[in-house]
């Protein structure tokens, strides 16, 4: 499905393009290197996009987990890998062909999020990437329930992630390195949440350019 390859590649490109922005954001209250991790993940996605799109979903998620685990060994990268492993496992007994693309994405995203929540010992509200992922997952599930196609599902999910990310501005970090500098983190967006939003928006634009807010 060339749509998937285009979406994955676009998501990767968006991360690579945002390296400096994410490093700067991250340096306010963190190590200042989230852009490096995001860029490494982006390169993996760009290079593997056609291969991943051609694989069975469970294998693709595991393959991506392995590659990201190797190329992005920071906490953020490792958590993303663990999320992808969780998503891959969730498909073990699923009859993927019977799922609509939107439902498939919603289920995989939910499992991805659960993997990160468990391993990262965090939840939405802690000022992490989960503040973007949480709203996106809920939106995808509602989209699947409503029979929406994947393009509009992603557009809505990206918007929800954006709102969730904006909400991190006034939060104080509760986990991770940022939490040691919690007060300093107030007033800044969480870099991980921004990265998630960029990925969703790029994927949405790749699949359904008409859904871009620029064209509405």
């Amino acid at each position, binding site marked *: 499905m060339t749509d998937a390859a285009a979406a994955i590649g676009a998501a990767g490109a968006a991360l690579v393009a945002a390296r400096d922005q994410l490093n700067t954001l991250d340096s306010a209250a963190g190590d200042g290197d989230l852009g490096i991790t995001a860029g490494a993940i982006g390169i993996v996605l760009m290079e593997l996009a056609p291969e991943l799109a051609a694989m069975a979903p469970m294998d693709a998620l595991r393959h991506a987990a392995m590659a990201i*685990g190797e190329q992005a060994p920071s*906490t953020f990268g490792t958590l993303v*890998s663990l999320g992808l*492993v969780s998503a891959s496992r969730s498909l073990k007994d699923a009859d993927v062909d019977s799922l609509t693309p939107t439902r498939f994405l919603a289920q995989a995203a939910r499992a991805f999020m659960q993997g990160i929540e468990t391993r990262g010992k965090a939840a939405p509200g802690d000022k992490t990437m989960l503040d973007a992922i949480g709203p996106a997952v809920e939106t995808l599930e509602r989209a699947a329930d409503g029979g929406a196609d994947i393009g509009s599902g992603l557009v809505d999910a990206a918007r929800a992630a954006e709102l969730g990310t904006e909400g991190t501005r006034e939060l104080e970090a509760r986990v991770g390195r940022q939490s040691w500098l919690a007060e300093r983190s107030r007033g800044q967006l969480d870099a991980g949440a921004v990265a998630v939003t960029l990925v969703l928006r790029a994927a949405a634009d790749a699949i359904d350019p008409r859904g871009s807010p620029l064209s509405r």
Partner: protein
Amino acid sequence: MTANLPTPQDGPSTMRKILNDPERFVDEMLEGVLMAHPHKLRTAGDARAIVRAAAPIADKVAIATGGGSGHLPLFMGYVGEGLLDGAALGSVFQSPSAHQMLLVTRAIHAGRGVLYVYGNYGGDVLNFDLAAELAADEGVEVRTVVAGDDVASAPKGQETRRRGIAGIFLLYKIAGARAAQGATLEEVEGCVTRAAAGLRSMGVALSPTIIPASGKPTFELPNGQMEIGMGIHGEPGVRRGPIETADRIADELIDAITGDLELSRSERVAVLVNGLGATPREELYILYRRAYQRLTELGVTVMRPWIGEFATSLEMNGASISVMRLDEESWSLLQAPAETPFYVQA
């Protein structure tokens, strides 16, 4: 970067180190170790994935560990017969990657499963959990025992938050010996878990460690002061005060440990007195003298001591004491022979 750091030729007291480029500290250390012991150790697809030269060893559960550099003989020093099969190593005081641990896992797995035994540090737990998940997807069964013996790092009731320090050596010994007997993965895991439940440690630091790449100490400790309960990466301890006598220190450490363990009269224990890197062996024996007396006063029998450097923190001045409650099985396993380039027990 390097040009701005204090070098051994520059500052008097900040960089008393024998090294070349500080950024190459770990790599050159590993190269030296492999040059010294080429028939015992080898790499497994990454310079920081170290395994037994003869790995995979057939017909037994494989044991792996991992953690940051700067603690020799911990972690790599216990890779060898009767102990561990492999170790993933990070930069100084930093976690190795999941990928490095995965490479170790693949290289040592002999079809009987793999047991990870490592210290409770957030980065290690996250990265090794990922390695275990990825290994599982490749058909390798991995189980994990995380060591949290440092009683100073979290109160009773929150044992899962405790850090792992030198007592882990005793867990390695148990794991390695049980695996060498041909036990199943479940049996080895159970054995190590039981031993870990009866293991407690606590330490004291008298001076900080200097990280090679930064030239800076990990914390400030004024001369004449000691910090009880400091971690092996310089994590804060439970109290700081003037350096006391060896007997007072031993009493404080032993009492904290035995209180937490609720040791009772006529129990049998193993004791490990560990030097953190800059403490003379003579001082470790002075500490052991009082530890042994204190335990004997409590009616506890010390079956055997291990005294020396088991888990250092580069040049930290200080020591830790570990006490492990023994049963017939664990006592027998601790006595089994073992041999690595860094540790020999007949």
